[in-house]
């Protein structure tokens, strides 16, 4: 039996002191984590070129910055680009990685171990190594400044394959046997048995992939050379200027960029908790 309260509190003595300390420490941590974001939020509601923003701004919020950022600024295009790229990349990766993960988890074929090792060995390769030639490739294919250039390289990362393989290994193989007897084809088993049972794992993978794609900076910086395909991170990086920054605008943009991620996180957070414990199927 595993538990949530693993650190046993000693009966009575010293207990309240420990608890007080715990709450204090957590409150402090919480404040330090969320405080800056609150301040950020407050700033975004103030029409300002000035640098000093006392908290009193909350009394008179203004949506002017948001208006500017959404209607008078390439930000909206960046947002659309980010959404398109992240969504498409995530969906495609979920399919690619679960198909491959299933094969590595359950099927027998020649070279399986070597191919798996090949995937594994690329985990440590820094982005900087592959980015340069990928840029040359994109250049040659005339794909610079396009959605394809942003999406396609992301599909190559093998991390998801490991995750899905790990997850699928927890699905009882008897279910596949039953499926085979019932009349499913190999692909049928994948769609009818494996995929539905992978949903928690897919949710976690999807969440992380979306997050990675959403916040990807270096590659879009290199390859999204105009606002046509520019995503939010490279765009956002242009807002703080060398000398005079309109912080109201910058903070409004930053807040806006966090909102979609917050929504997605909120929607899928229950899968995060499930996802860590692997697949859950009926105990029968």
């Amino acid at each position, binding site marked *: 039996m595993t538990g949530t309260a693993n650190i046993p509190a000693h009966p009575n003595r010293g207990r309240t002191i420990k608890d007080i300390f715990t709450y204090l420490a957590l409150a402090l941590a919480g404040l330090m984590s969320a405080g800056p974001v609150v301040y950020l939020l407050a700033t975004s509601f103030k029409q300002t070129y000035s640098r000093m923003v006392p908290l009193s701004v909350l009394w008179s919020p203004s949506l002017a910055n948001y208006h500017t950022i959404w209607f008078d600024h390439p930000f909206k295009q960046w947002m659309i680009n980010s959404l398109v790229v992240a969504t498409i990349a995530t969906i495609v990766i979920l399919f690619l990685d679960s198909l491959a993960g299933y094969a590595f988890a359950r099927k027998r074929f020649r070279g399986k171990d070597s191919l798996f090792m090949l995937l594994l060995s690329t985990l440590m390769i820094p982005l900087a190594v592959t980015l340069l030639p990928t840029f040359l490739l994109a250049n040659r294919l005339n794909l610079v400044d396009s959605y394809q250039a942003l999406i396609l390289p992301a599909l190559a990362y093998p991390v998801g394959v490991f995750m899905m393989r790990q997850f699928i290994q927890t699905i*009882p193989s*008897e*279910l596949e*046997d*039953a*499926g*085979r*007897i*019932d*009349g*499913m084809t190999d692909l*049928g088993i994948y769609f*009818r*048995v494996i995929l*539905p*049972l992978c949903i928690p794992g897919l949710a976690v993978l999807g969440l992380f992939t979306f997050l990675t794609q959403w916040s990807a900076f270096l590659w879009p910086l290199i390859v999204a050379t105009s606002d046509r395909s520019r995503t939010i991170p490279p765009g956002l990086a242009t807002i703080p200027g060398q000398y005079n920054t309109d912080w109201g605008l910058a903070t409004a943009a930053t807040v806006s960029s966090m909102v979609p991620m917050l929504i997605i996180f909120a929607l899928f957070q229950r899968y995060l908790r499930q996802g860590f414990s692997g697949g859950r*199927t*009926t105990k*029968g």
Partner: protein
Amino acid sequence: MADVSIRQVNKLFGDVRAVNNVSLDIHDGEFLVLLGPSGCGKTTLLRMIAGLETPTSGEIVIGDRVVNFVPPKDRDIAMVFQNYALYPHMDVESNITLGLRLHHTPKTAIKERLDAASVWLQLASLLKRTPRQLSGGQQQRVALGRSVVREPKVFLMDEPLSNLDARLRVNMRTELIKLHRRLSATIVYVTHDQSEAMTMATRAAIMRDGVLQQCDTPLHIYRRPANKYVAAFMGNPEMNFLRASVTRQGSELQFTGESFQVPVPAHRRAAIEAAGTNEVWLGVRPEAIMLERPEGQSGVIEAQVDVISPMGGNTLIYTLFGEENVVADVPSEIEPAVGEKVALRFDPERLHAFDLKTENTLW
């Protein structure tokens, strides 16, 4: 319904021979139990009948065709798994009917069969639930329902009762027997529990390390085991085994052990002489031993009572003599005291002898 023939089937996993040259004919309408400890090959054999594994050599025949390379869905079989293998994300009704739908069974037939199965297996109220919401016994009935509606030629069952608690297991045994009768089904059933085999099988096939040891009705196996392994496997408590040599005493033959001597029954003399060996394992089941007062009579073994286990209607009495332990199963009216000396008489009609080296039965 159909016959299933297993003809000289071998299965190798790398270097491991899981099934070793097994041949077996399963008759139409039989309830055949594949019995043995884990690793003996029974499940592998079942999976080969199902089509989930392919024999390395040999043939599997269902009905009148060789099905080695026929995929499971086309073999007209149904299987009940140890862990039920119900699709967790589908409700009970979908679990039961999926196979039929994938085989393009007409909707009316599906409904008919589903209704019939729901009635006998009492699933009607569970149809819309998911497996997570069911108890072990309920899941098992759903798994049965799934296989029943397929109206297969052969039912394959892989230790379906081992996940149930003891009481439920006993109930389900009788349910399965009734199912067998009702459907006139050919059932191939895998288990390691010899009492399941005794109660349910029309015939049992005992396997050990991939080799088929004996295939016969349970009672025949019990009374006439083919070798020492089978003799030990069937029956609880286990048969008593004593090493002995065949010696001549005047005109009589005797089984002589280190600390005992019993006469060779007259009607077995011929078999002993034909066997051409002097070293044997003597085997006698606990219920074939009678207790007498030690009064120097012949043909008995003097022993001392060690442990007494009353079972209610009968009592198990563990005795010691020399280095040997022998357990006797006697009516509960017999109540010796611990340490008391008793005389053990083996029923000559129910004595077994096994060649010491080959362990095969001598008669």
